């Protein structure tokens, strides 16, 4: 078992609730999606899985060990945990804090104490593999959103974590880069990485997940299941604010139907 969280409650500093009695588990090699509308608590849940936020109630186990603030203060535990879990933040500007792309990708391997030669080799390999070697000397300020996302992924892959947490990996990207990101996630999972992805993009869930947790507006898990099962449940998607009723006119006929913004089945489901 990679992660096991039980009855987790978390509130923001202003007192508003982010997660309420959330339980979930992630097995080794799985691809799991956390599906939910904006503000449902997906990002917070990923922060908790990465040991960046700590729940007020409930407990989190990672790799069979209890994950707490105290444990992460132990250098040995912290280093081993950080090596095993990589987190790609939703906003690449948060993640890209170094002055060049090369330095950014080297940051993680350097912090976990890899030898200098290995750091250089890994950075070159990852930049080459993701097709961004030409960006290596660029300042993050000058990159496009798609390039920033690729560099953010590279900056995590360079220290080879076995678990990848990705927060809205396709948000704000053009279709070509979205497809690139999805292919990259699939390839990494096939290579044995466990992937946990927070998203509200119904287009990609079937490809990036074999199991889904749906977070509702009440910040609770309202469903768990495989993508085919979840995506067919209209009532559930409307309850989770992931689909809505849509009214429009075809010639002289006005009609209403449930509506999901997915690329493959737009309009098909209600004909």
């Amino acid at each position: 078992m990679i992660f096991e969280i039980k009855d987790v409650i978390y509130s923001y500093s202003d007192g508003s609730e982010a997660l309420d009695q959330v339980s979930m588990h992630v097995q080794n090699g799985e691809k799991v999606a956390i599906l939910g509308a904006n503000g449902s608590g997906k990002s917070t849940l990923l922060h908790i899985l990465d040991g960046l936020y700590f729940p007020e109630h409930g407990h989190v186990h990672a790799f069979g060990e209890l994950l707490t603030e105290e444990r992460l203060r132990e250098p040995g535990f912290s280093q081993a945990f950080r090596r095993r879990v990589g987190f790609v933040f939703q906003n690449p500007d948060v993640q890209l804090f170094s002055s060049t792309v090369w330095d950014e990708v080297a940051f993680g391997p350097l912090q976990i104490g890899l030898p200098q030669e290995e750091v250089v080799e890994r950075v070159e390999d990852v930049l080459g593999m993701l097709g961004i070697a030409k960006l290596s000397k660029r300042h993050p300020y000058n990159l496009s959103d798609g390039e920033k996302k690729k560099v953010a992924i590279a900056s995590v892959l360079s220290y080879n974590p076995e678990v990848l947490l990705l927060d809205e990996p396709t948000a704000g990207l053009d279709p070509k880069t979205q497809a690139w990101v999805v292919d990259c996630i699939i390839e990494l999972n096939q290579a044995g990485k466990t992937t946990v992805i927070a998203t509200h993009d119904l287009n990609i869930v079937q490809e990036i997940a074999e199991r889904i947790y749906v977070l509702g507006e009440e910040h609770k898990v309202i469903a768990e299941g495989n993508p085919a099962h979840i995506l067919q449940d209209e009532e559930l998607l409307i309850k989770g604010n992931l689909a809505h009723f849509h009214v429009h006119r075809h010639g002289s006929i006005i009609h209403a139907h449930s509506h999901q913004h997915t690329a493959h089945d737009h309009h098909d489901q209600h004909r």
Partner: protein
Amino acid sequence: MNTRTLPDWLTKTEQFTLPKLQTKQRKTDGFIEKTLAGISTIIEEAVFSQKYANLPGLLQAMDARFKLISVLALLLAAGFAHSIGLLIALNVLALLMALASRIPLTVFIRRVWFFIPLYTGIVVFPAIFSFITPGKPLLSIGSAIITEQGVKAAFMIIARVGASVSFAVLLVLTTKWQNLMRALRALYIPQTFILTTEMTYRYIFLLLRIVDDMHLARKSRVLQRTSGSENRDWIASRIGVLLKKSQGLSEHVYLAMLSRGYTGEARTLQPGKAGIADLGVLSFSLLVLVAVIILNWY
């Protein structure tokens, strides 16, 4: 079923005719536009200055660590020089180094000599008069007498500042920011200081872009001319918003660093080895420093 009904007024098109172009339009650029134009210039200049750092010139070819030490030696030489001849020679040396580094002289001179008359000139101006520097009269304007010693002292200060600024500008123009930071690391400047400076440089651009966007978003929705006090109120409130945004950003950046194994002490790559050009320019700069010190004795 959740259907939406648009209010009546939203379904009607309101007609507005654009006024015809009138001759002799008064320029209405307010202080916000001017300030933001200035900000954009700063951003462009910062990015633009990398252009010279990428040219294949003498100083660009040097390792930043050796360049930093060489420039420090030349700055010391400018500080030690006590004769006008030596200071002029150092200014000429800076010009030659700019030429060897393929920096257009107009760009270099504008960067160095634009602010010097403005700041240093004003500061040293009183020193040319006899009530500050008594000596041999050179010219009298009413009761004020300009002395030869005063003019000489003022000229020396301006020439010294000119030489010092020239060497500093050469370092900045010919070195990429990240290499300069790496050079500071190699000189045992505390890592925390360097990391903080690097991140400040990185995020100041992001915050400036947010400022620019906020201004444009407002401009696109302002339908009539706003008063100065309204503009000031808006600026003050945006400063507050920006502070909150930067706080939130800093917290998230810290989490992103923690997530990748940062423990409070950043580890960095060891610097590379020096080349012949590095040792050549470094030796030359140290030689200039020693020569200036010796020449000052005679």
